[in-house]
């Protein structure tokens, strides 16, 4: 898993450097491009906090799991899933808003990179969320192993860890 995430990290590094190259190469330094909506910095900051909180709660769940067994982690794992789900849904709602305001994948370089980068992250978030749900179901069935939990958690930490970098790069 760690090896895989290393390759994944390079994927995001590639996206970010591509974005920087295009952004800094814009003639006249006009960024964001004229006529394009501004990205919702504040709303997304709230959403970012939700995601960060989910990371913290997951860490607590992991500690409880190790110390007091699976059932002790139940509530916290569920909370992680709820927070993560909130993040993904909020992000989807934000997309709908932006599309309504005329920011599409074709409308400008900003639109293209926005949907590309945030979309890539969203795909990872959905995948990792699915992993968390599987882990939760296993927990209820009483056969959640440490390895499975650790793998799923690592993937979620990756999703949580990449996001602030994207937020800083794309939104700010």
């Amino acid at each position, binding site marked *: 898993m760690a*090896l*895989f995430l*290393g*390759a*994944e*990290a*390079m*994927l*995001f*590094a*590639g*996206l970010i*450097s*591509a974005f920087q*190259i*295009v952004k800094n*190469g*814009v003639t006249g330094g006009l960024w964001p*491009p004229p006529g394009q909506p501004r990205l919702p910095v504040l709303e997304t900051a709230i959403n970012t906090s939700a995601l960060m909180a989910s990371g913290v709660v997951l860490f607590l769940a992991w500690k409880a799991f190790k110390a007091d067994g699976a059932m002790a982690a139940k509530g916290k794992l569920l909370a992680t899933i709820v927070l993560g789900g909130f993040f993904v849904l909020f992000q989807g709602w934000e997309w709908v808003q932006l599309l309504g305001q005329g920011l599409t*994948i*074709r409308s*400008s*370089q900003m639109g*293209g*990179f926005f949907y*590309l980068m945030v979309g*890539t992250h969203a795909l990872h978030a959905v995948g990792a969320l699915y992993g968390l749900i599987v882990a939760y179901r296993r927990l209820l069935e009483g056969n959640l192993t440490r390895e499975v939990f650790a793998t799923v958690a690592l993937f979620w930490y990756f999703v949580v860890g990449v996001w602030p970098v994207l937020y800083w790069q794309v939104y700010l």
Partner: protein
Amino acid sequence: MAEHAAEHALDDHGGGHDDHHDVSFFHKYLWSTDHKMIAKQYMFTGMGMAVIGAFMAYVFRMQLAFPGSEVPGFGAVSPGTYNALVTNHGTIMIFWVAMPVLIAGFGNLLIPLMVGADDMVFPRLNRLSYQIFLVSAVVIIYSLFVQGGGFGGAWTAYPPLSAKAEYNLTPQGASLWVIAVGLEFVAFLMGGINFITTAMNSRAPGMKAFDVPIVIWFLVIASILFMASVGPLIAGAVMLLFDQNLGTGFFDPNQGGDPVLWQHLFWFFGHPEVYVVLLPAMGITADVMCVFARKKMFAQKIVIYTAIATGVLSFFVWAHHQFISGIDPRMANVFTVTTVLISIPIAEMCFVYIATLYGGSIRLTTPMLWALAFVAEFLIGGVTGIFLGASGTDIYFHDTYFVLAHFHYTFFPIAIIGTLAGITYWFPKMFGRMMDETLGKIHFWGTIIPFNMTFIPLFFLGAAGQHRRIYDYSNFPELAVPWMQNLRILATVSLIVMLVFQVVFLFNFIKSALSGPKASKNPWQATTLEWTTATAEPGHGNWPPDAMPNCYRGPYEYANPGREDDFWPQDEPPADTEEQA
């Protein structure tokens, strides 16, 4: 399963968890999780693709030698077809021949056997990796037959040509090309995870880092390089697909995009990729040379450190492919320096190989001939590369046949010569039988001589200014002069001679696999663990579960003065000190 396996421990498979004996053909050959079977699947697929890639080379070389004439077995070549053939020849040779055979094929075959493990750590992931790879191969071949024809924008797929159908005229071919390459990357990511974890975690008891044979070291370093470099290109591939199909303009200057950006993403992967395929070939060569020179690897540790350093450096040379793409000249200087720097470790490795041979008792078997040829031919590729790495000379040489000849002098030794050294050497391990030495040597000379006669003329053509990726030189009067056309014909005829000699190999390969003389357990008197299995061709599980090998020493204990035998297997327990005295 464990008890069941123990029952069968002594059967002729000598295998471990061989718990399905009446397996169907399907399960044995197509759905197997045995690393050796997967290795064969990769190798056979790669060899099949090599035949396709070579056929393409035959067709476009015929067009260049005899422009406009009907090519026997193909028909007349139109300009669009020519471009599609060249593009897919390059793509197939690198991604569907060199990668699957060298990394996936030999990686799967050798890593578990040489570190003394019964299989890969994640066998099912391994099987999935091959299946995805197979799908990718089908997609790339299918892409040649869709409406508009195969993609013709070169294996480097530079935009805007590759990004917009109105330029490349192959809307479907171009997208299928990207999808095929992407699928192939996913397959090798899975393989890479397996290789690295297996070599790190499944080593035989007692096997320390420097007891691991060089070829395994190099395969693992290559896998790490691949995994670290491929991410940005996957990002680029997605962007290219979006540009092609969703109307984005990431690489289209008309829409504010940056075409040179693709070049960065491509070559950031593309240059390490050269070392991804080079390192396994060098590893195979090192092991084969030690066995047949009956000597320790010269400076074994230094070679390993050098390879690691080369791997790191290979991430900082990519822009030497872009000297004339309008990059900042100051940046060109930096990349010239790093490129010349990276030639130092590679040159050092060639010297180390020669030093390994020095004073050895050399046995000129077929695998040894291939290994020696690898070093000799690769040196030509390396030396000519220095002219291209220096930005000044590259401005002249860029995109000429000089470049083309240079990289064929690196890729052909890697993908063909190194592979053949490995196949002829480990053939007894794969099929339990020996190959015919006489046929092997006929094939060797029948390949090496025409290979040089094909590509040496291309250096001269390139130096005279002949550009790459040109369909017909008759349109360029100064390039259509008789001496140049004669060299083109010489290259094409030599290629045909070389291709004919491959029939000798295929015949030898198939006949030996089916009815060659049975191989003994350790036919080459080698020291490494793959030769310690109970039978020459072990079953699933490699060793009986109660007889997994231990490792007591390094992999190159040849001609040890204190011993009667001139080789000292890694798994042989140290003799009692008293007995020795």
